[in-house]
């Protein structure tokens, strides 16, 4: 009897662990495959059959990517918008949250309502477009920072965290004659480090990943596009071309040719690496963030 239960349990475990391993593999494999393609000789890739590892190893795809002047600039702009957008977003979100969590703040109610309504209604793509145009933000770097400066969810999360800090701390500082700016920058902001890290990472990932604003507002300016946008463009070109099966025929004769597919693979990896790099350090914060958000919901 006991043995029977044991074998049944063992069988169950084997099935369970196998299923989870398959899920793990399915999650990771797409990245491995594109990495292998990006490190494989471009013409060789066209023969197919690249699964887990490159067959003819080369770094040529990567060096080619960085030899086009447009792509390093795009990468630099992606970094710039991420750094600037995150710094500005953090400060503004925290400051706004600080003002809104003051118990006796005279505008607390109307401003909170003004903020919350933005969660449900927005103008839509075309009115937004005309606003950017009349503000002179078309083909302007500031369009990456300003329109998304504050997000109502983030303000709510930070405000909830600030409300959990005992009043006595800022009250004591006020007794000593500190005004609100001082209290905010010297006391409250540092105390909010965990929640600031959480929303900062969300903002940073959002900045790094966005491409649609470039597509709408900055595609006319050559040196103002971002990495994600350039990747999108190359991908779209490859898609249209491979649907017509142009590339497969045309590239067979060449010996060391670089194909758009290989470039696409290399840029995909370049755009993924920063996420992979920060990921292990920050995923704890992300989880805490979603839990904070869930409580608020």
């Amino acid at each position, binding site marked *: 009897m006991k043995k029977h239960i044991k074998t049944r349990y063992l069988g169950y475990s084997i099935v*369970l662990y196998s299923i*989870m391993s398959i*899920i*793990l593999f399915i*999650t990771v494999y*797409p*990245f491995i*495959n*594109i990495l292998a*393609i990006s490190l494989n000789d471009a013409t060789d890739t066209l023969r*197919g059959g690249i699964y887990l590892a490159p067959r003819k190893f080369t770094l040529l795809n990567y060096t080619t990517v960085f030899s086009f002047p447009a792509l390093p600039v795009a990468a630099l702009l992606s970094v710039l918008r991420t750094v600037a957008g995150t710094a500005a977003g953090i400060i503004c979100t925290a400051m*706004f949250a600080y*003002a809104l969590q*003051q118990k006796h703040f*005279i*505008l607390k109610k109307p*401003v909170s309502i*003004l903020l919350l309504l*933005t969660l*449900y*209604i*927005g*103008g*839509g*793509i*075309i*009115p*937004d*477009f*005309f*606003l950017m145009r009349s503000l002179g933000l078309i083909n302007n770097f500031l369009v990456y920072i*300003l*329109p998304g*400066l*504050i997000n109502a969810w983030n303000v709510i999360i930070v405000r909830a965290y600030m409300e959990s800090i005992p009043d006595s701390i800022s009250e004591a500082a006020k007794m000593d004659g500190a005004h*609100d*700016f001082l209290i*905010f920058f010297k006391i409250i902001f540092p105390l909010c480090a965990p929640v600031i890290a959480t929303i900062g990472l969300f903002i940073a990932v959002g900045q790094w*990943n966005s*491409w*649609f604003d470039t597509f709408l507002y900055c595609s006319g300016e050559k040196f103002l596009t971002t990495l*994600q946008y350039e*990747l999108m463009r190359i*991908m779209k070109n*490859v*898609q*249209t071309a*491979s*649907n017509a099966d142009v590339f497969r025929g045309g590239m067979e004769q060449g010996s060391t040719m670089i194909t758009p597919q290989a470039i696409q*693979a290399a840029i*995909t990896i370049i*755009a*993924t690496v920063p*996420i992979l790099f920060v*990921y292990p350090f920050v*995923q704890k914060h*992300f989880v805490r963030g*979603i*839990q904070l958000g869930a409580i608020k*919901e």
Partner: protein
Amino acid sequence: MKTKTGDNKIDLFQVLKNQKYILIMSIPFVIWLIIFRYIPIWGWIMGFQEFQPGQPVKWVGFAHFIKLFQEPRFYLALRNTFVMSVLNLFSGTIAAITFALFLNEIKFGVFKRTVQTVSYLPYFVSWVIVASIFTKLLALSGPVNELLVHLKLIKAPVSFFGEKEYFWWIHAAINVWKNTGWNAIIYLAAISGINPELYEAARIDGAGRFRRMWHITIPGILPVVIVILIMNIGWLINSGFESQFLLKNYLVIENAEVLDLYVIDYGIKLSRYSYGTAIGIFKSVVSIILVIVANRLARKASVSYIF
């Protein structure tokens, strides 16, 4: 603290003076909110005009809306939006719950943590990257087709992105790949909140693993599931458009075009700004109605849980 009516003016002045730093800290953001979030709503008047930049304004009333409701392409876009939203919501929820249930069964801590950490990685990579990877993976000569042919599951490679009938399903599957780990976090939290004594009691009563899962875990997380499903009703018309934009091609456009893509294609590319705005207004109105319905339902659901 009672204030006499006569003191109101002085009080207000005093309050403003006392709160001047708070005011300085918040007024810029109020201005920002008005400019970037409320002026675009004012732009809705375009939907009732024949608007072209630099030309005199011509009012047309509801003409754009009437045109909209006569346009077959609009109904296609509306259908695609709802179908993909509903498909994503259901496939996503079921996948996340299943994954959470499986993960919860794993007792080996290192493996559990590894699986979980890896599982929400795809959530953080952009749709551009995901589309870039999957259009290659599912290409005619891609690894998935080669594997399926090799396993003799299919005779000839399938053109996954070449048949419009497949698009909704592929889109849903990629969504599941991208979001399951992330969506599961909330269900894992709900599972860990279930009282362990319940499992103990069930074990003593002779309930096996699956019975315990069915009779304790699933009822235990059901309130969370219902709340999340209800909350998502409000988003049904906002299916997002990035994934569709990136994964579509001219072969599948009939099933891939959602309302926002219709706006981009018609409103911006063809400069039919007023018509595009009208679509946006329609979307917002439906969205607000859905949010209100969702809130009503949520209230009802929570009432039924109290009793």
